[in-house]
């Protein structure tokens, strides 16, 4: 299977390691990956902040770049959420019926990484080794917009050496919310401080999630507080270790 990788502008620029890890995991499982250079950004930040006219060309670009692939995979729940849940609305706003049809055709082929591994490949053990105490934060968009449910946890459960601990109040928002963290910085910080307390209470060394935007926010807070807890993207944990898959 040949999949189109959507690395997202955010990962491409700030968290390239997550992109490399995504490639590593997919290739380890025999998937042929392609990174179309013409990709830039899904338009989520513009669309969600209210700059919807400005997002339309980005939506069109995304559809142009990725329509030809059998499947599209991205290591970001929120960007996949944008494509799957809001692209239809964007096409409607653009008043472009042709675009709407192409969007509808593309949407079911776009997967967040854990969905792709579990639903499309049917794999829950990617052969990773990660000997650390880890807690998982389900980001709001993966949890509620995409409904990835227990998929990331099933993948983590099969990582050798890992000690997975439950996060109290896991489903509560970390307070990132894109421009929310800038426009309502005080409220965002209040939400973050509770999230950090819950993370610290688990005594985990690492907090993981399927989205680097939330992780940057959480990790940035943890770093400022010198907590010693590190924020690591799910893809990087799945890419770690020997690459030998277990028999389970």
């Amino acid at each position, binding site marked *: 299977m040949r999949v189109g990788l959507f690395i997202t502008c955010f990962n491409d620029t700030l968290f390239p390691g997550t992109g490399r890890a995504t490639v590593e995991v997919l290739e380890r499982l025999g998937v042929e990956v392609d*990174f179309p250079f013409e990709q830039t950004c899904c338009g989520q930040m513009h669309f*969600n902040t209210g700059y919807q006219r400005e997002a339309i060309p980005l939506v069109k670009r995304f559809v142009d770049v990725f329509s030809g692939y059998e499947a599209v995979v991205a290591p970001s729940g929120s960007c996949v959420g944008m494509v799957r849940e809001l692209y239809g609305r964007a096409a409607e706003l653009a008043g472009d019926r042709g675009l709407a049809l192409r969007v509808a055709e593309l949407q079911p082929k776009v997967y967040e990484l854990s969905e792709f591994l579990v639903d499309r490949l049917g794999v829950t053990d990617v052969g990773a080794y990660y000997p650390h105490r880890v807690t998982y934060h389900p980001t709001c968009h993966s949890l509620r917009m995409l409904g990835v449910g227990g998929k990331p946890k099933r993948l983590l459960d099969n990582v050798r050496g890992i000690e997975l601990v439950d996060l109290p109040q896991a489903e509560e928002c970390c307070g990132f919310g894109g421009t929310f963290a800038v426009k309502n910085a005080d409220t965002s910080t209040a939400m973050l401080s509770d999230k950090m307390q819950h993370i610290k209470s688990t005594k985990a060394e690492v907090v993981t999630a399927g989205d680097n935007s939330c992780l940057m926010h959480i990790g940035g807070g943890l770093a400022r507080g010198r907590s010693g807890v590190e924020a690591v993207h799910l893809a990087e944990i799945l890419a770690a270790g020997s690459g030998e898959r277990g028999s389970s």
Partner: protein
Amino acid sequence: MARNERDAATAAPDAFSGGNKRDTPPFEVTAKVALADNQLRRNLGKATQAIRDKREAAAGEMPDWEELREAGSAIKTRVMRHLDEYLVQLEDSVRRAGGTVHWARDAEEANGIVAGIARENIGEEGTREVVKVKSIATDEIKLNEHLEKEGIHAAETDLAELIIQLAGEGSSHILVPAIHKNRAEIRELFMRELGLGDLSDEPEVLAEAARIYLRRKFLSAKVGVSGANFAVAETGTVCVVESEGNGRMCTTLPDTLVTVMGIEKIIPEWRDFEVFMQTLPRSSTAERMNPYTSFWTGVSEDDGPREFHLVLLDNGRTEVLADEIGRQSLNCIRCSACLNSCPVYDRVGGHAYNSVYPGPIGAILTPQLAGIGSSPGADSLPYASSLCGACYEVCPVKINIPEVLIHLRGKVVRNKQDNGGAKAKLDPENVAMQTLAKTFSDPRLYEASQRAALVGQWPLARSGAIHSLPGRLAGWTSARDLAPVPEQSFRRWWREERGGAER
């Protein structure tokens, strides 16, 4: 904290109607005041957490919960699509049952109608007073203040409403208006305002004190004022759902009853109650059945009020109705589940929203009723959310609040761009968004800007982390570090490893 800022954060908001200017401050300003109040955060956090857990259990025990949500949504959506017809039908049914129907375009008209009825029926002797059961629609139009100007006191009889009325504050929650207050605060208030001598802060003692005080009011009042949770178009039946029984006293003891309801509160048929009587109590107080549900249809001989008036309030609602995406906001049955599940509401409380409708539903309803562009406050509300979606998940009528928030943000930005003149175009956010949109629409420009970011950040990077950002982004680094931009972007790595188009 400046005193006037604090006042602005707790005072009752201005009445609003479509297009009216309400000079409310932006959410981030009032939120800051609220966030500084540790007592408030403690009171709130405790109360919402408890009810959140209970609601989940109450909804979870219904095997057909999702179907019930779907049904509630379908009924309300149908009502909104044919609201004009249902309203005429309701008017007809109420008249046939012996009631009088009044139409009020805005707050002023509605207040005038209620004041007129009150003046006529209070009589000249005794206290000039009406008793009221919790009604958000009358808070929306500031009925109490209006009556006060006419020399008529509106005595709130819902316990929580009474508390905030005595405290001179606005409501901070649509179901538990005094949620921001704890027992000790309430005890002090009662002792001071009701002149009751020493009280303990046991809930029973406080409730008993209120009961004695209110009983006198119920027995003397000639006019009762109520809101409505539902009105049945088919039969003309009005319904109030409450948990103390005080509402029932208000609607049955006085000779004259005036009900003020927003035009969206209609349900088509009696049997539609089946759905809402299951979803509303479970969503709001996590109860299987609501304690006091009162129904009345017009007037009846020797039972209840002799006169019944129904005031149908528009106050901006027909404009909301005209917006295809925003319209679903009118489906709200005011259960307050979205408030209790909202992490933003949870931290800042209701006053920060500067509206009688706080929380997620307020963030979409207030700017629509007041009008986009009517005040900095209204325009800031669609941004008072991290778009986490918890509100949508719990809403018993499936209002897609995040969808409406994003839609309204689009309207706020478009309004600024199209009507804000040169100043709006030069707004730093607008400039940044335009530049980014241009950059993202061209992969070459985009890659060039990645390199520029790498160079541009150097003055900010300290010991491997960025501790402070300039300008509008300073809020970000006030509490978080930012990792520096890595040397090699993903696309550069891919090109170097795998080859590909050279730029």
